[in-house]
C-alpha cells in the first residue's frame, strides 16, 4: 500500500495542504542530459487533423435524436424582485415543450443563499426562466412571450460608489465582501517609509475584461431513466459532475460529464454553470435531450469577467534603489455574487522587500460576477506594480531594468517560512530579452519616430506565477494486444495542447511511437480523476501521473518480454518500439511482439501524481519587452515588437508552448489597448455584449512577437522537470506596453485600456517628463 504523506499544492495563488500517496513505481527525473526522443520536441498536435477538418465535436456540435433547444430568459433590470412569471402564452406556442422558472420548480441553492432562479435579480442577465423548444428560433420566440412582473430596486454598478454607506445594498451585510478587507503584512511599512529617501504614491486602475471564449458556455443533457449524461464546455469535468449531482440530489455515479473539444475557457469554465442544471431540468421535464448553448450576448453578460481594480500604491525607496516598503490598497469589483477578487499577490512576491502591506477590498456590485481569468489577480496587480516600479526607478534616476535586478528576490517572501524558488532564472530572462529588444540602445527607438506626429518608446515588465501543479491526478495506460496504447485521464485539453503532451509523455516512457498512443480525456465515467484545467497546473499535475502509469504498464509488459528473451524483467529497457536487454541491446523484441505475447491478459498501468518537494516554492517567471509607436494626432498606440522571455523548466513541447506565449501576449494587447466592458451607469445595462464593440485583437493588430524560451530543467518540481506556461505570458505584457507608452510620450497613462481618448486627454493636460 502506498504511504500517505502531506504535501503543499497551489492553484491560482491559493495554497493548501493535502494528503497524498507516494507512487510505488519510481520514475527518475528526466534531467537536462536525459536523451528524450519525443518529450521536449516541437511535435504538431495529435488532434490537429480533427480541428482543421471540422471533424472535432465540441459541445455545441452535439446533435442527438429528438433533441430540444434550451434558452434562458434573463433579468432586464440590474436589481429587482421577480414578482411573477407568466408563461401561458409561451407554452401555447407550437414547438415549445417546457417553460421553467422559480414558480414551477423546486428551489436549488446557488451562490450560498441564492438559488438557481432567484426571486431577486441582482444584475442585468440574471436567470429568471428557461424554455425548451424544437429549435433555437422557436425557443427565442417563446422567451418574448413570457411575461415577468418586476419590482425594481435601487442598484449600484460602480465599485467605489458601492462602498459608500448610502449605496444600495446587494446583500444584508453590506457591499464589502466579508464585511472587511483582506489584509497581509510583513515587517512594518511605516518603518519602511521612515527609512526611505523617497516615498512615492500613485493610483492605477484596470477595466473589466471579458473572457470571450469563442465557444459560448453551454451543455447538452440527456437522461436514460435516472442516469444523466451531460456534454459540457468545461475546464473541469469532475467539478461539474460532483456539483451537478449535488444540485440534483442524485449520486455522482448517476452523472456522466463529457468534454471532448472545447472552444476556449480562460478560467470562466471551471465550475458548474446554471445553464447545465437548467438543461438537465428541461431534459427531465420533457424526457428528451436538451442542448442549451448560451448566445454571445448572454456569454459576455453573465459567465464571468476579470474584475476591475483600483490600486493605490505607496512605495518607499532609497537613493541606491533599495525598496524599503511597498503598500497596496486595492478595491476589486466582485460582481453581484461571490466570485473572488484581489490583485495583491505580485506586490507581495515579486520584489525583495522586508516591509509589505496589502489591504484589499472585494465589493459587491450589480454586474456580472468575477471569475478566474487567465492569471487572475496577477494580470491586474502586475500592471499596477510594474507601472509603479517604472515610476520609482525613473524618479531616482535608475534604469528600470537595473532597478528590478537590484530588488531581485530568491525566496518566496510571502510564505510564513520563506522557501527558495525551485528554479528562478529571471536574471537570464532579463538579459536575453534586453538583448533582443536592444534595451541599452532604446534611445535610438525613441528618436526614430517622426518626432512631431509619431513617437516611439520601449518598456519592460516582469512576471511571477505558480504553475507547479501537484496531486491529486490519475492516469491509466492500457496496452492492447496489437501493441497500440490507450491513455485515460480525467483532465481536459482546452486547446492548450494537453492531449499532445500526454501522448508525448506516454510514448516516451513506453519507448514507442507517438502514433501508437491514443489519449482519451474529459470523461468522468471512463477516466480516473484529475483536477480542473486551470492555474497552468495541468501538464505538471497530470504529466507525472501519465508517466508513472506508462512505467507501470511497461514493467508489466516486460514480464512477457523477459520470458521470451530469457532474462529477468529488471534487465530490460525499451526505446523506439523495441524492448531490449540493457547490457546487450542487440538482444531485443519488438514492443508489439511482446504485446502479442501478453494477448488478452489486459495490461493496465495505473499512475498518480506524487507529492510536491518540501523546501521549495514552485513558480514560473518571465520578462517582457515592448516597443510601441504612439500617434500624437490620433492618440492611437501601435505595438511594433513584443519580446516575451519565459522559463517554466523543461518545455514539454516548444511548438505548442510558443503558441501559448504568443496567444498570451495577443490577449494582453487587447487588455492593454482596447478591451473593456461598458455598462451604462444610469440603467445598469451592459452596452457592448458582442465582439465588435468589445474589441479583441484582430489579425491586423498583431505585431512581431518574439518568444524566448529558456529550456533548463527545473530539477525539483516533478519527475518531468517542467511546469505550466498557460498563464505566465498574460501577466507582464500589458505593463510592458504601458511602460513603453510612458517612455514614448513622457506621460504615464495610469488606467487600462490605453485608448486613444485617454492618450489625447493626457497629451492635452500634462507636461511630458522622463520621470514618469
Amino acid at each position: 500500500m502506498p504511504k500517505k504523506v502531506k504535501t503543499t499544492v497551489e492553484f491560482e495563488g491559493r495554497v493548501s495542504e493535502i494528503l497524498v500517496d507516494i507512487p510505488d513505481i519510481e520514475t527518475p527525473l528526466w534531467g537536462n542530459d536525459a536523451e528524450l526522443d519525443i518529450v521536449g520536441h516541437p511535435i504538431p498536435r495529435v488532434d490537429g487533423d480533427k480541428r482543421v477538418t471540422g471533424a472535432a465535436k465540441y459541445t455545441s456540435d452535439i446533435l442527438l435524436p429528438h433533441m430540444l433547444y434550451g434558452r434562458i430568459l434573463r433579468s432586464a433590470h440590474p436589481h429587482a424582485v421577480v414578482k411573477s412569471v407568466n408563461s401561458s402564452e409561451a407554452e401555447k406556442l407550437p414547438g415549445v415543450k417546457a417553460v421553467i422558472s422559480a414558480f414551477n420548480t423546486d428551489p436549488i441553492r446557488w451562490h450560498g443563499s441564492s438559488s438557481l432562479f432567484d426571486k431577486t435579480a441582482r444584475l442585468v442577465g440574471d436567470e429568471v426562466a428557461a424554455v425548451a423548444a424544437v429549435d433555437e428560433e422557436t425557443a427565442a420566440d417563446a422567451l418574448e412571450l413570457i411575461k415577468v412582473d418586476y419590482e425594481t430596486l435601487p442598484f449600484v454598478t460602480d465599485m467605489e460608489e458601492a462602498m459608500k454607506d448610502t449605496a444600495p445594498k446587494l446583500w444584508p451585510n453590506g457591499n464589502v465582501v466579508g464585511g472587511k478587507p483582506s489584509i497581509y503584512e510583513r515587517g512594518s511599512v511605516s518603518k519602511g517609509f521612515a527609512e526611505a529617501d523617497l516615498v512615492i504614491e500613485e493610483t492605477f486602475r484596470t477595466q473589466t475584461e471579458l473572457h470571450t471564449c469563442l465557444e459560448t458556455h453551454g451543455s447538452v443533457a440527456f437522461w436514460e431513466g435516472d442516469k444523466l449524461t451531460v456534454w459540457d464546455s468545461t475546464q473541469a469535468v469532475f467539478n461539474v459532475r460532483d456539483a451537478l449531482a449535488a444540485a440534483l440530489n442524485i449520486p455522482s455515479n448517476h452523472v456522466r460529464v463529457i468534454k471532448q473539444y472545447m472552444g476556449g475557457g480562460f478560467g470562466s469554465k471551471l465550475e458548474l454553470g446554471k445553464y447545465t442544471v437548467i438543461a438537465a431540468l428541461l431534459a427531465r421535464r420533457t424526457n428528451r435531450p436538451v442542448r442549451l448553448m448560451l448566445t454571445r450576448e448572454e456569454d459576455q453578460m453573465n459567465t464571468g469577467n476579470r474584475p476591475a481594480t483600483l490600486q493605490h500604491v505607496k512605495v518607499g525607496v532609497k537613493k541606491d534603489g533599495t525598496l524599503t516598503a511597498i503598500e497596496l490598497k486595492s478595491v476589486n469589483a466582485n460582481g453581484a455574487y461571490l466570485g473572488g477578487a484581489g490583485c495583491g499577490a505580485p506586490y507581495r512576491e515579486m520584489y525583495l522587500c522586508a516591509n509589505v502591506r496589502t489591504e484589499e477590498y472585494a465589493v459587491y456590485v450589480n454586474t456580472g460576477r468575477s471569475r478566474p481569468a487567465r492569471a487572475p489577480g496577477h494580470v491586474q496587480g502586475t500592471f499596477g506594480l510594474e507601472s509603479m516600479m517604472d515610476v520609482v526607478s525613473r524618479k531616482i534616476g535608475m534604469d528600470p531594468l537595473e532597478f528590478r535586478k537590484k530588488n531581485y528576490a530568491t525566496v518566496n517572501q510571502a510564505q510564513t517560512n520563506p522557501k527558495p524558488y525551485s528554479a528562478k532564472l529571471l536574471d537570464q530572462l532579463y538579459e536575453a530579452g534586453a538583448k533582443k529588444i536592444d534595451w541599452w540602445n532604446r534611445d535610438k527607438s525613441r528618436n526614430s519616430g517622426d518626432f512631431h506626429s509619431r513617437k516611439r518608446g520601449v518598456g519592460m515588465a516582469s512576471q511571477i506565477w505558480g504553475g507547479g501543479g501537484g496531486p491529486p491526478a490519475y492516469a491509466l495506460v492500457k496496452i492492447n494486444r496489437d501493441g497500440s496504447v490507450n491513455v485515460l485521464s480525467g483532465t481536459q485539453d482546452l486547446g492548450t495542447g494537453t492531449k499532445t503532451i500526454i501522448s508525448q509523455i506516454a510514448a516516451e516512457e513506453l519507448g514507442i511511437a507517438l502514433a501508437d498512443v491514443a489519449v482519451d480525456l474529459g470523461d468522468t465515467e471512463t477516466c480516473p480523476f484529475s483536477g480542473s484545467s486551470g492555474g497552468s497546473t495541468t501538464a505538471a499535475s497530470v504529466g507525472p501521473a501519465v508517466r508513472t502509469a506508462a512505467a507501470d504498464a511497461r514493467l508489466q509488459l516486460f514480464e512477457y518480454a523477459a520470458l521470451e528473451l530469457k532474462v529477468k524483467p529488471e534487465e530490460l529497457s525499451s526505446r523506439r518500439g523495441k524492448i531490449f536487454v540493457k547490457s546487450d541491446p542487440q538482444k531485443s523484441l519488438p514492443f508489439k511482439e511482446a504485446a502479442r505475447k501478453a494477448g488478452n491478459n489486459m495490461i493496465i498501468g495505473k499512475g498518480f501524481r506524487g507529492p510536491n518537494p518540501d523546501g521549495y516554492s514552485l513558480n514560473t517567471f518571465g520578462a517582457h519587452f515592448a516597443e510601441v509607436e504612439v500617434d500624437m494626432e490620433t492618440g492611437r498606440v501601435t505595438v511594433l515588437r513584443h519580446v516575451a522571455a519565459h522559463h517554466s523548466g523543461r518545455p514539454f513541447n516548444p511548438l505548442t508552448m510558443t503558441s501559448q506565449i504568443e496567444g498570451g501576449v495577443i490577449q494582453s494587447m487587447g487588455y492593454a489597448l482596447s478591451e473593456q466592458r461598458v455598462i451604462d451607469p444610469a440603467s445598469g445595462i451592459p452596452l457592448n455584449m458582442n465582439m465588435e464593440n468589445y474589441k479583441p485583437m484582430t489579425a491586423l493588430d498583431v505585431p512581431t512577437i518574439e518568444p524566448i524560451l529558456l529550456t533548463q530543467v527545473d530539477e525539483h518540481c516533478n519527475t518531468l522537470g517542467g511546469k505550466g506556461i498557460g498563464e505566465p505570458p498574460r501577466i507582464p505584457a500589458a505593463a510592458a506596453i504601458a511602460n513603453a507608452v510612458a517612455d514614448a510620450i513622457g506621460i504615464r497613462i495610469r488606467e487600462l485600456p490605453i485608448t486613444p481618448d485617454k492618450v489625447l486627454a493626457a497629451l492635452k493636460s500634462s507636461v511630458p517628463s522622463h520621470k514618469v
Partner: protein
Amino acid sequence: MSEIKSSQEALIPPVSRREFIATVGVGVASATVLTTGVMEAEPAAETLAHEPTEGSAHHVPISLWVNGTQYEIGVEPRWTLATVLRRELGMTGTKIVCDRGECGACTVIRNDQLIYSCMTLAVDCDRSRIETIEGVALKEKLHPLQQAFIDNDALQCGYCTPGMVMALKHLLDHQPRPALDDVKEACAGNLCRCGTYPNVFKAALEAAQKMR
C-alpha cells in the same frame, strides 16, 4: 451549375417530413450520378443522421449543393445558412460564435464568394454551390492549407479554425502568391481569442508556397 438546375426543375413544393426524408435520399443519389467521380456523394444514412426540425409549418423547399452533394430541403425563411448546415445537415464544422457577422467563425464559400453563413438566409442560397470546412480535404487527404495549419500549430482551441481555413483557402484559390499583408487582410474578419494569428500567417504562406 447546369446539373443543379436540371435537378432543381424536378423539385416539388412543400414536403411533409416523410417525403422530405425520401427526397433527400433521391437528391443524394442523383448527385452521385451527375458528378461521375469528381465529387463524392455522402452515404444517405449519414445525411439523415439528424432528423429535420419538427413543428415548423412554413417550410420553403430549397436546393443546396454542399461540398459536391445536392440536398433538397425544407427551410423556414428565417433560418440562416449556418443553422441549416449545422442543425439540419449535421455539418457542424462551420461554427457560430457571434451570430452577427463580427467574427468569421461561420465563414463558408458560396458560388466562389466568401460569406458569413450566420448572416445569410438559407432561402437566399437556393440553387447555390456551398463549400464548407468538411469539403476542403481532397478525398481522404488534407488540403495543403490544412496540413500547414497542423504543422505550424495555427490552432489552439480550434473553434475559429474552420472559418480561418475557408477564408485563406479562398485567398489561395484566387491569389497563389500572397504577401504577408494579403494574408492578414484575408483573415482580418476572423477573430481568434487564443491569439494564434502569427501561426495562421505562417501556415497560409507555407501552404501557398507548397501549392505552387
